[in-house]
């Protein structure tokens, strides 16, 4: 038994061992198979399809990007920069497959980030829906069409209260968590709504915000994994340097879609998009196509979240032309300072006709030998940078201001010339042969002309010639000679000296109006009466000229009768360095030399003869100044002060510069002469010995 048992035990042991061995083999085989499978898979992953998988894991898309062309710089005549560019950052978005909840959370984070850094963003929703009052600013149809998930909902929403629409939008359309306040939810909705209007595709990302701070960019870039779909890019932004004095010449820029309602008819052809800024006034407007340049194109590789992996330039951008103005910024600033200061002084000044309401004006200084505008200021002025920032509250304040702040009074303000028109009437009289330069005319206090009794504010001046009449600004003298010459001759010569038509300056300008038979008939439907000629002869009635017309006219008297085309741009420079100089153009007024000489003599007397209306002002000058004052009664006589004008050129014997000054409600023409004096002193680099 024992033996037997032993045997069987041994056998059992053997069997067991065999079993173990068997199992071991099975396990081994399994392990080997597993390993083989793994290996096969690994080989498959790493070697056979390795590159393909690698490519998929970092899936990239080739698309085109924009390289924004640099807008041309604007300089003064001496190369002092007025407008240029600085680099700014923008945020764009590409839709990813995040859930509503994730998207909203990310947007909330973005809102906080933008808020923290004081950055603004585009919001169409805000223009449609007012979150403070829970009401619609505009027709809600467009909004409902976008947010309604189906036709039934849309029908329901059309009749729903704004609050219900908001609730629907919040919960149904955008699935915004109830943890957010209405205000927070609204801000998330602002972004979501933009994404609804324009789906953010990888090859056409949605612009979220422009000109954001580097702080915001830093967070978005470094923490890009927390903001999938968002990316940043840089672009040049317009920048003005100390441009307040030159604001009206420079003009301003605005959002193309906002300023040009019909922009889509014209601008897309030229390559604009609705977010683009475009020149709206001044040089920025007039030379938009020169300044703008042509955007370039990149070929870029982006990942599925819109992040830039690499790029290369496909088409290089072509920067815009640089513009050199004829403006001397130094003179411009002196003119602006003086205008602002003197308007203040005039307002405070004691005078029987002063209603202390002077508040606006313009100064233009022109090179009499070229037509180059050396200074052109309009007051009140503004900072054109406000328009670049896109703060519509500030912009609308400027645009809608009762003082017409953004109006360039130098080119678009039309003022009755008053006595500054007298040299023109003298030219007409001389050219018509009514008088000769030395003709003396009896100039009484009272006289009946054209059926009306006229009085002379200068009293009975007895026998005076043209020189004396201009110096003293004798109304009676000009009633007489104007009437003799006749309105048609006055108008003819007025036209010859540029009145009643545009001067041809590059920026927008008003034609003004010229008192004439045609004008009266056209606008009043009435015929001309003889007394009208008397009124027109002292620069009243329908005569309204712009300061640029006035300066052009006085410059032509100074230079012997040539009417240069006033211009603000001296030269343009292509990015290649090629210079395009502005051609100097003029036409002849056809006035005889003797005529011009006689008028010149009278204008010199204004500032230099004993009884000249502006004799005190230029007495310390090393040369003579030829000028003419003007005080224009406005329709609001008795409520407001008269408009005040002064025109001049200097030096009288060899003129270089002509100046026209207008101060609205400036009381007396002579009050504005100190402004011209400041301009001349700066131009000729004179020291004020009086101070």
């Amino acid at each position, binding site marked *: 038994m024992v033996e037997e048992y032993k045997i069987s035990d041994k056998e059992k042991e053997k069997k067991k061992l065999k079993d173990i061995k068997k199992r071991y083999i099975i396990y081994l085989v399994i392990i080997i198979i597993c390993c083989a499978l793994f290996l096969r898979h690994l080989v498959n992953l*790493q070697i056979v399809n*390795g590159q393909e998988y*690698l490519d998929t894991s*970092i899936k*990239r898309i080739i698309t085109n990007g924009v*390289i*924004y*062309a*640099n807008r041309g710089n604007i300089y003064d005549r001496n190369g002092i920069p007025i407008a240029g*560019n*600085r*680099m700014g*950052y923008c945020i764009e978005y590409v839709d990813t497959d995040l859930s509503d909840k994730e998207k909203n959370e990310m947007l909330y984070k973005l809102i906080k980030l933008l808020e923290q850094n004081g950055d603004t963003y585009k919001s169409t929703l805000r223009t449609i829906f007012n979150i403070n009052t829970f009401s619609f600013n505009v027709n809600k149809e467009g909004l409902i069409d976008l947010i309604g998930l189906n036709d039934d909902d849309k029908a329901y929403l059309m009749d729903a209260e704004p609050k219900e629409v908001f609730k629907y939008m919040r919960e149904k359309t955008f699935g915004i968590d109830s943890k957010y306040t209405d205000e927070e939810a609204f801000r998330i909705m602002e972004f979501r709504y933009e994404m609804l209007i324009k789906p953010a595709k990888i090859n056409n990302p949605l612009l979220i915000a422009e000109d954001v701070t*580097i*702080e915001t*960019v*830093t*967070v978005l*870039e*470094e*923490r*890009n*994994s927390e903001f999938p779909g968002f990316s*940043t890019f*840089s*672009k*040049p932004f317009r920048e003005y340097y100390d441009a307040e004095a030159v604001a009206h010449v420079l003009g301003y820029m605005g959002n193309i879609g906002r300023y040009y309602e019909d922009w889509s008819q014209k601008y897309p052809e030229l390559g604009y998009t609705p977010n683009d800024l475009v020149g709206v006034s001044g040089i920025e407007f007039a030379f938009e196509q020169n300044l703008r*340049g042509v955007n*370039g194109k990149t070929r870029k*590789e982006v*990942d599925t979240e819109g*992040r*830039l*992996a*690499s790029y290369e*330039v496909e088409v*290089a*951008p*072509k*920067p815009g032309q640089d513009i050199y103005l004829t403006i001397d910024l130094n003179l411009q600033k002196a003119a602006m300072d003086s205008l602002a200061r003197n308007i203040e002084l005039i307002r405070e000044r004691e005078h029987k006709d002063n209603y202390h309401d002077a508040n606006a004006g313009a100064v233009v200084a022109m090179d009499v030998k070229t037509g180059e505008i050396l200074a052109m200021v309009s007051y009140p002025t503004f900072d054109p940078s406000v328009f670049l920032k896109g703060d519509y509250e500030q912009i609308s304040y400027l645009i809608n201001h009762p003082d017409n702040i953004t109006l360039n009074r130098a080119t678009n303000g039309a003022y009755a010339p008053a006595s500054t028109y007298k040299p023109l009437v003298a030219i007409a009289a001389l050219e018509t042969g009514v008088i000769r330069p030395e003709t003396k005319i009896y100039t009484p206090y009272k006289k009946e002309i054209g059926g009306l009794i006229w009085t002379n504010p200068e009293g009975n001046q007895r026998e005076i010639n043209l020189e004396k009449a201009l110096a003293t600004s004798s109304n009676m003298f000009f009633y007489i000679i104007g009437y003799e010459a006749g309105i048609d001759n006055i108008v003819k010569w007025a036209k010859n000296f540029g009145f009643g038509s545009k001067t041809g300056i590059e920026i927008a300008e008003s034609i003004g109006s010229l008192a004439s038979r045609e004008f009266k008939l056209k606008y009043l439907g009435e015929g001309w009466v003889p007394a009208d000629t008397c009124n027109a002869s002292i620069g009243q009635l329908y005569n309204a000229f712009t300061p640029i017309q006035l300066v052009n006219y006085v410059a032509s008297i100074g230079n012997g009768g040539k009417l240069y085309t006033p211009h603000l741009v001296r030269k343009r420079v292509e*990015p290649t360095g090629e210079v395009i100089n502005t051609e100097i153009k003029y036409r002849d007024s056809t006035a005889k030399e003797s005529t011009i000489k006689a008028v010149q003599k009278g204008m010199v007397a204004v500032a230099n003869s004993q009884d000249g209306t502006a004799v005190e002002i230029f007495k310390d000058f090393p040369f003579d100044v030829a000028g003419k004052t003007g005080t224009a009664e406005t329709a609001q006589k008795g409520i407001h002060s008269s408009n005040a004008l002064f025109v001049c050129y200097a030096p009288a014997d060899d003129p270089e510069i002509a100046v026209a000054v207008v101060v609205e409600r400036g009381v007396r023409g002579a009050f504005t002469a100190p402004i011209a004096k400041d301009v001349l002193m700066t131009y000729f680099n004179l020291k004020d010995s009086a101070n």
Partner: protein
Amino acid sequence: MRRIFGSKIFIISLVIILVFVLAALTAGEDSRLGVVRNILTVPLNPLQKGIKTVSDKVKDSVNFFREIRTAREENQELKKKLQQMEHELEKVYRLKKENENLKKLLSFKEQFTQETVGCNIIAKDSGNLFESFTIDRGSKDGISVNDPVINANGLVGRVSRVDLLSSKVVSIIDTESSVSARLSKSRDLVILRGDAQLRTEGLCRLDYIPPDVEVAVGDKVETSGMSSLYPKGIIIGEIIQIVKNEGQFDYYAIVKPAVDFRRLEEVVVIKVGAEQGEQQ
């Protein structure tokens, strides 16, 4: 034939055979042979002497062979020892370097108020460079997503994913990476990005250089510290090329990182996230 007869082997073989024969002959105590032995012994005595000399010689040569063998063994042993010593030396050198690195790191680390943790790289993604890789520390060690990663030379990258015992690091040459940087000289802020093309050479792109900022080859770039992510003043690298595209307003530069992304062993994670977590 002479060569055979004259060769040592022949002599030795002959002697050995002879000795064997003689040994066989003298083996038994056979009286019959005593005479023979005597007969043989006496005359053979001088021969015996000669044989002794020969056998001594043989013994010598055998010993010589034996000594050669031991020498060889000894040689091998010494060689092994030398190798070991060299290995040790190398280890010492490596430790020394490591020590230096660690010292550098330590002083580097001292700049940071945050806690840091040294890590080893345990895996890396395919490719020749350490664009993204895995380190041997994870959330257990207090590492959080976005924690900056440095080594003794400068900025390596940031933590992109954290597991319990390991973490994934995205290096600054990866296209996923963007770092707010500062030009050491002009102090201007720029953005350092990984570039799909440049990363194969271990380089980065430095974007957003404003047109009025002059940079030169050799200019250093460091972290700006503008965001909460990377501490201020960590060396990133230096500019090796400036790229101004025609007509483009701003421009970019190519940066060679201070960290060599071809060789990376230890890195240090600055536990920024942990600290922020505590603060919250």
